[in-house]
């Protein structure tokens, strides 16, 4: 039945002489992707231009000078270290929190879950600067902790934990609870069941969530900008450089980010396609 229906649509499409709507849509897609990619391409090209102001039009020769300049820039290197420290902290905080929240929400059969859910996802819907500001205020007023790597870690965790929770919930909803029940019936302790059944089932999601948390943390600007105090991360350092004018060293960072992103996105799309087929 569905096969004949699909067949039918196929012939219906090929029958029309020129599908104007489709042509316009394809044209629009082309423009849209040009809009998305041209600025990136400019950014990458300018990283190899000898001109001291990043440019693609004023070509002063191919150079790798800016690539050599980057590792010598101590503030960028320190910023990267700070970013990684924060990201590690964010992962350590958000994975357990997100997991606990997801387990509660999927297993709790109560009227209160919608409210609990709203509270737990609210940081995702809060503007980043508000998260940064509230964390800064709370930790200074309550414990005298000034803005720095610690407050940045906590501020980021508050919303990254929500993302992790949603990922865990999506996974848990597909879990077959029968396995757990069978193990319990056979006399396994609940801790053993969690360690041997639930946790292995969630392991792929834990890894994905950690990767997403890492990326979100390193990329975050708005929240970090407020909570970081006098310290800095790679991204806030890029931001403060940009305010005083632009330098090709930032283009080099751009090239590295673009390369990493393309590899990661390709792997992700390939993996999800394979999953879709299997």
């Amino acid at each position, binding site marked *: 039945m569905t096969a004949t*229906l699909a067949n039918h*649509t196929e012939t219906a499409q090929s029958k029309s002489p020129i599908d104007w709507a489709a042509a316009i849509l*394809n044209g*629009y*897609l082309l423009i849209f992707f040009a809009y*998305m990619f041209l*600025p*990136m391409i*400019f950014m990458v090209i300018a990283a190899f231009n000898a001109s001291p*102001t*990043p*440019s693609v*039009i004023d070509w002063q020769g191919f150079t790798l000078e800016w690539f050599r300049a980057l590792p010598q820039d101590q503030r960028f290197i320190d910023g990267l270290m700070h970013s990684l420290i924060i990201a590690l902290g964010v992962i350590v905080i958000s994975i357990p*929190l997100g997991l*606990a*929240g997801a387990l*509660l929400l999927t*297993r*709790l059969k109560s009227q209160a879950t*919608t409210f609990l*859910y709203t*509270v*737990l*996802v609210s940081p995702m819907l*809060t*503007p980043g*600067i*508000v998260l940064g*500001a*509230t*964390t800064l*205020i*709370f930790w200074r*007023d*309550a414990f005298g902790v000034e803005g720095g790597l610690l407050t940045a870690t906590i501020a980021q965790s*508050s919303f990254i934990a929500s993302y992790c929770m*949603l990922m865990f919930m999506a996974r848990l909803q597909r879990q077959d*609870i029968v396995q757990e029940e069978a193990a*319990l019936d056979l006399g396994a*302790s*609940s801790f053993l069941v*969690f360690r041997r059944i639930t946790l292995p089932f969630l392991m792929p999601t834990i890894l994905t969530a950690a990767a997403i948390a890492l990326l979100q943390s390193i990329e975050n600007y*708005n929240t970090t*900008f*407020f909570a970081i105090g006098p310290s800095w991360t790679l*991204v806030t350092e*890029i*931001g403060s450089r*940009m*305010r005083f004018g*632009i330098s090709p060293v930032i*283009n080099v*960072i*751009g090239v590295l*980010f*673009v390369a990493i*992103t*393309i590899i990661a996105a390709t792997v992700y*799309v390939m993996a999800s*396609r394979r999953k879709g087929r299997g």
Partner: protein
Amino acid sequence: MNSLIKSYGKGLTSIFLGLTAIWIVVLIVLPQLSMIDRAFTFEDRGGAAATLAVEIDRAYEQVFQINIRLDELQAEKDDLIAGTSSAGQQEGASSLNPFAAPVPAPSGGASDLNPFGTPSAPQANDRSDLNPFGAPSVGSANTVSRTLAEIEAEEAPLLADKGDLEERIATLEAEEQATSDTVGVDKSYSLKNFTMMSSVHLQVFLATIGYALCVTILAFALCYPVAYAVATTTSRNKVAILMLGLLIPYAINELLRIFSWIMILEKQGILNGFLDLLGIINMEAGEGFRFVASNGAVFTVMVYAYVLFMVFPIYNTIDTLDKNQIEAAKDLGASTWRIHWRVVLPHAKPGIAVGAIMTFMLSAGSIAVPSTVGRGLHPDWFSQVIYRRFFEADNWNQGAAYSLALLVACIIFIMFNMWVFRVGIRDIAK
């Protein structure tokens, strides 16, 4: 709760409950509460406590002046004792009376509105009265020499005054300690942090909300066809390529996306270079538009930076639509417009709501775009006003009030979307 304990046991369940409780209390509720607390706590910088601080400063200054005068008199006395007469000593002691000029009383409403106006003006007057060298009296210069008794007669009231002042400083400082721990600030619960928002800040707030709404609408207009096209593409390979094309710019750092646009809009940038190639402007002659540092540039870059947050949610919902519905509508003779209005859009509602909420929230709260594209030269974005309240004006309470205003605007927008698109919170955050 029972089902939870049944599957994980008491120990693990309490760990989960504990972690979630910590998350809610420490990371979400308490920070929000401390922001709200600060937002409604008005720090009266021009009120009683501030006047107190000014008074204490002034008393210290007066003691300092008296000490100078006493030193002078002491020197005069030493000279007399040594048998040499000193001449030309200035007097000015009459104007030295510390309480000659009335200390400004703890001020009322007017000073609240203008925190630094009232206390500073009388202070300046006082200073000129106090300054012993301000108006050297001609008469005193003629006093060639004075007797020891005369000098001591002048010294006595000064010493008494000094004693009084030191006593007063002690009481004032005790009072200050009692009123608040933060120096010179009087705290009280009020709405003043909001009502005191200057008209400039209010305009910036409204403009920011307006721009954010425009970004959201424009992002929807740009994204809907893309999401539709990707979701209705039947070829697997084409979908993979399109998804890759969307994911890559989406995943690239927000700041780098902004950076690439600054390169374009810069005065020596690509757009001006392009115009130069077309012969519209001559860059050699220093011609060129400074596109950056304007609200238009902030707007353009913001659309670019946040547009993709609209694509994915809409794509996800259209993807679940049974495409046969579209075919059926087509076969029944519906126009393209009607298919979208009656079939695709209603199905995409939750996605549109999510996309709109994310885009609005990101652009209304963005500090990355206005602070880097704007360079502080364009009219402020509200996020920058908040930042300045915190870190430049050092007025955290007003900063908290402004943050709360932004948060409330976002909440209203979220509720409005939930109402218009008839979606629940579970549809929104997925």
